[in-house]
């Protein structure tokens, strides 16, 4: 990410949302809302002083709510750009200002003079910041908006409210040096190091009840977690519950075999029936073991649920903004699974990564490169080839009724002013060549190249000639 931010040909716009898109392939005009940060990023050095002195604590989204951040914060230590933002939802100044109109707190800018604590050393805090709207012109667009981890609350059978039942993402943060425990493995219920950990796969994936698709990455990251734990803490017992192990990919099978050799216990046998808290504070797993051909029960100290990959929260909104279709599972839909894997129904809009469907890092990188190439190849020549089969309006015959404008499924027709009169005009770049306009035009003002009325009538005449 740092390299991207430094690249002379890449402009990185963060903390922003796409509001609207106009135009068509080669000529998109994108309206972007740059959210108010309340911090002048020109001045902010990313020192983190404001985060230390801010009195308001908020659950940290980056650590899945397992730790707290402040109301002024840098999202995570490696954030690019490393600049602070104020969260106006929780900031005491903004909250009080909204409620009573009074200006309170302001510790991040002014410090606490009584205690000798200084505010922002760069003087970067600006409480009056507002959302800014910018417009940029681009030739093509790549949607790579990622995914969301399925919430564990949907699985009451796995005791999701128990502090020692975590999702894989929460567990990942628990293992991280920048996580809530600074990398120390401990149970969130009592702070002790767990002796037995169970991992449960396909939580929400491959299920008629939730998502029918396979989330693709869970088997491998469960094995990764097992391997990290076994290499660091060989005395921990690990139980990995799978429906079946799917380690498809280069070197993945070897990774699986190696993890088994480290001593992680692999249990295959369909979906785990339930996780129940026991009176002694442990968690009882009820499952079935195919190899033993028998139901099994194991008591563990911690349970990690590999919850499904779900489409990102804004996928539907973006699909409407960019006129890109989405599949039944809610991911962006490609034109063809095999032949056009990064193209979408909107010409000039491409997709990559988990926004298109669940995939791992190698697949995401490969698809991102494909999308980048496709997007660049479309724009670099400076001109685009179109099908010759398009509609054309004869302005002499056009009666300005506008019937075609509303009928066009591709919004390719607009009424344009010519010498004081509004005449229909077909934008060739958007015309998909359906001919609906030509059939509907009451003035016969639209010529449909390749399938003119005369041509079709001549064919019908030829067919019926011998009758």
């Amino acid at each position: 990410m740092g390299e991207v931010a430094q690249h002379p040909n890449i402009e990185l716009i963060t903390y922003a949302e796409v509001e609207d898109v106009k135009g068509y392939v080669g000529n998109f005009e994108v309206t972007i809302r740059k959210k108010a940060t309340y911090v002048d990023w020109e001045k902010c050095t990313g020192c983190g002083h404001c985060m230390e002195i801010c009195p308001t604590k908020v659950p940290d989204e980056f650590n899945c709510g397992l730790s707290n951040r402040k109301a002024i914060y840098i999202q995570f230590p490696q954030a690019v750009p490393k600049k602070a933002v104020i969260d106006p939802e929780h900031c005491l100044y903004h909250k009080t200002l909204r409620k009573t109109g009074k200006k309170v707190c302001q510790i991040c800018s002014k410090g606490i003079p009584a205690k000798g604590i200084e505010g922002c050393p760069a003087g970067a805090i600006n409480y009056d910041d507002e959302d800014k709207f910018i417009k940029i012109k681009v030739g093509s667009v790549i949607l790579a908006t990622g995914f969301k981890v399925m919430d564990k609350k949907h699985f009451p059978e796995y005791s999701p409210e128990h502090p020692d039942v975590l999702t894989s993402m929460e567990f990942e943060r628990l293992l991280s040096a920048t996580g809530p425990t600074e990398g120390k493995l401990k149970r969130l219920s009592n702070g002790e190091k767990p002796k037995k950990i169970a991992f449960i796969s396909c939580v929400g994936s491959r299920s008629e009840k939730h998502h029918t698709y396979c989330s693709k990455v869970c088997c491998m990251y469960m094995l990764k977690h097992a391997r990290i734990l076994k290499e660091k803490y060989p005395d921990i017992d690990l139980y990995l519950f799978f429906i079946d192990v799917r380690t498809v990919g280069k070197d993945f099978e070897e990774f699986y075999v190696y993890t088994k050799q480290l001593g992680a216990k692999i249990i295959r046998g369909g979906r785990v029936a339930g996780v129940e808290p026991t009176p002694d504070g442990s968690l009882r797993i009820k499952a079935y073991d195919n190899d033993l051909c028998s139901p099994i029960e194991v008591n563990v100290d911690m349970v990690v649920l590999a919850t499904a990959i779900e489409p990102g929260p804004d996928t539907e909104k973006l699909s409407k903004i960019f006129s890109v279709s989405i599949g039944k599972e809610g991911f962006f839909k490609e034109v063809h699974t095999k032949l056009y894997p990064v193209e979408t129904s909107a010409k000039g809009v491409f997709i990559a990564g988990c926004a298109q469907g669940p995939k791992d890092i190698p697949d995401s990188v490969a698809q991102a490169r494909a999308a980048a190439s496709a997007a660049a190849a479309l724009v670099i020549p400076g001109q685009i080839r179109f099908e010759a089969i398009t509609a054309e309006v004869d302005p002499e015959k056009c009666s300005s009724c506008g019937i075609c404008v509303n009928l066009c499924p591709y919004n390719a027709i607009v009424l344009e002013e010519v010498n004081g009169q509004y005449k229909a005009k077909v934008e060739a770049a958007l015309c998909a060549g359906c001919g609906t306009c030509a059939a509907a035009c009451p003035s016969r003002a639209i010529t449909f190249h390749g399938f003119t009325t005369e041509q079709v009538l001549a064919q019908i005449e030829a067919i019926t000639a011998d009758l």
Partner: protein
Amino acid sequence: MSWEPKIVVIACNWCTYAAADLAGSLRYKYPPTACVVRVPCSGRVEPEFIVEALVKGADAVLVGG
């Protein structure tokens, strides 16, 4: 010989025409009295096409799209 109706088939390029093409590839048979006119989309079909076919003597018109 029994009477067979003469049918003018106006077929969308993307579905009906592709299906007729596939029928040919699969060696399926359909009567020679059904004659296909390809259009880019059933949206291209003007009422006049249908009326013209019937006026010129077709027994039926099939618009597929």
